[in-house]
């Protein structure tokens, strides 16, 4: 079990290094001069001298490999550089905003799982009936509705019917959990619905598959009541592929998170990211991509843990 986890962790390191390298070179080598874009973002019309001076200030006039070495060394020592816009350390900027994004992600995930697992199971068990079709349409909706638009609609509906909007400002989960919950429930619903749609489809497909397995036939043949067949045979076996999807589709939710934070004026990582893209603040962009990748890998490690907990084949040491 421990070996399995260590194994996974070792596999994650090259991916992380790869993402860091790729992001660095993408930002450094792609056409388009970020410094110029950045200076133009204030509405100025910089002369070549000003651009050159700015490049020198940011250390962008050094050879690319020296910059890259610097970046990698920074990565090891936990230093992601300083924002070329505000001058503050990127890591501080990120840490300031990470809690909101993480809380939102976790809440969205919880909502998605709570909605999706029962619905997917129901749709699978009753597949081909009106209930199944209803749930499938619900799932299609989650895939089709842009989460940022859904968020807007939810907020509008709250405003129309209850004259209520989520509170603004940044609140700490520990000092004021209720306020945080008020603030994050609507955006979490908006991103969670989309996530739930994916899970419903996966769960439904695996329930249908599990239902035609031999062990289900055997269970029926020996006269087990339907409810215990579902509980003891179908659901546990269908959970395995669904849990994998929970990890993989997390990437999808990160994309929605970036946009939904803008809708609800949440000061999270996504907001910082969008602002940095608008200002061409490459160092912050780079830092955020690295941090997001770490989170993505961490989530998938957690999913592997959950997987190991569910699947006896892994728990008992083959991995």
């Amino acid at each position: 079990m421990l070996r399995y986890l260590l194994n996974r962790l070792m596999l994650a390191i090259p991916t992380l290094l790869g993402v860091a390298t790729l992001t660095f070179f993408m930002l450094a080598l792609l056409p388009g001069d970020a410094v110029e874009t950045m200076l133009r973002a204030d509405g100025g019309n910089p002369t070549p001298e000003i651009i050159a001076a700015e490049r020198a200030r940011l250390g962008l006039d050094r050879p690319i490999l020296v910059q890259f070495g610097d970046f990698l060394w920074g990565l090891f020592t936990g230093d992601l550089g300083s924002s070329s816009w505000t001058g503050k350390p990127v890591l501080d900027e990120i840490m300031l905003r990470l809690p909101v994004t993480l809380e939102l992600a976790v809440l969205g995930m919880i909502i998605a799982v709570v909605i999706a697992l029962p619905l997917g199971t129901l749709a699978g068990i009753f597949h081909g009936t009106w209930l199944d079709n209803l749930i499938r349409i619900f799932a299609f909706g989650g895939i089709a509705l842009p989460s940022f638009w859904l968020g807007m609609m939810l907020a509008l509906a709250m405003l129309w019917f209850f004259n209520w909007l989520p509170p603004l400002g940044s609140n700490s989960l520990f000092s004021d959990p209720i306020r945080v919950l008020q603030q994050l429930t609507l955006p979490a619903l908006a991103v969670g619905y989309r996530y739930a749609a994916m899970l419903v489809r996966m769960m439904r497909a695996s329930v249908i598959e599990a239902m035609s397995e031999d062990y289900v036939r055997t269970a029926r043949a020996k006269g087990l009541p339907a409810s215990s067949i579902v509980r003891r045979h179908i659901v546990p076996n269908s959970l395995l592929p669904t849990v994998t999807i929970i990890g993989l589709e997390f990437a999808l939710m990160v994309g929605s998170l970036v946009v939904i934070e803008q809708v609800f004026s949440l000061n999270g990582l996504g907001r910082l990211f969008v602002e940095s893209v608008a200002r061409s603040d490459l160092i912050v962009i780079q830092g955020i991509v690295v941090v997001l990748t770490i989170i993505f890998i961490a989530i998938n490690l957690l999913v592997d843990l959950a997987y190991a907990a569910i699947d006896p084949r892994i728990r008992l040491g083959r991995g």
Partner: protein
Amino acid sequence: MRNVFPPPSHGPLWANEPKRLPNWVELIRNYPFGVVGLLVLVIIFVASGLAHWIAPYDPLETNYANTLAAPSLQHWLGTDTFGRDLLSRVLYGGRTALFIGVSASIIGSTIGAMLGITSAYIGGWFELILERFLEVLLAIPTMILALVLVATMGRNLVFGIDFNLVLAIALPIVPNMARIARSQTLTIRRQAYVDAARTLGFSSSRIIAWHIAPNIAGPYIVMVTTFVSQAILIEASLSYLGLGVTAPTASWGLMLAGNAFNSALTAPWIVIFPGVAIALVVFSFSMLGDALRDIFDPKASAGR
């Protein structure tokens, strides 16, 4: 006594087959969702393609005397904060969304398919390096990758369409398609007809073009359809964030941006219709994609 050996029937063999329903009835019966999706898409393609002739107003024509008007006979979907006709803007926005969505999806899928096929066919170090590279690309969430590309590439307007935006949406599709094309090619290249072609001395490029590529056409079409909906959602999100399509061009995402939310308190139609348009298109593409997947690969879709 029953005639055990009936005389051979005259006429062609298929005369004895049970009468089959016409193909299209069968299609509707087997894939109702897919057919609905296809129909909606045809309507939307035609309507937005002919936007120039259909749209009742110029999408850019402002009318400050008639801002935020409710839907009426003159303005079917109402007007926005500048008094522009929403129906016309939704139609023109559809043109933007479909153009960017379809072209990004085709560009991304084609590059991906070519990379996937070549890497699987050639193998060796080329495959190894490409695989690692694509794996890393896959580890970055699609939306994030698109945003990074937007940040680095800047704008590059060709005929009013930001070509770099299309590329930024297309590139995240590449690794996804490449992975699928690769796994398909790996099974195809072991088929006897590929061996036969090689024995006949055909060149690799000919074998890839004539013997392998046609065989992954099915999954390719399915994936293009699926990626179009993804691309349209990303275009809408980027435009909403102010990083996609820029101001004079009509775009659904752009119509929701800025202070649209505040105006929507008094005039909800200005946010409802663009959102419904996005949802309708994405919904139809997903349903069509699902149906195509069932048609091309019946065994992979266990009742999905």
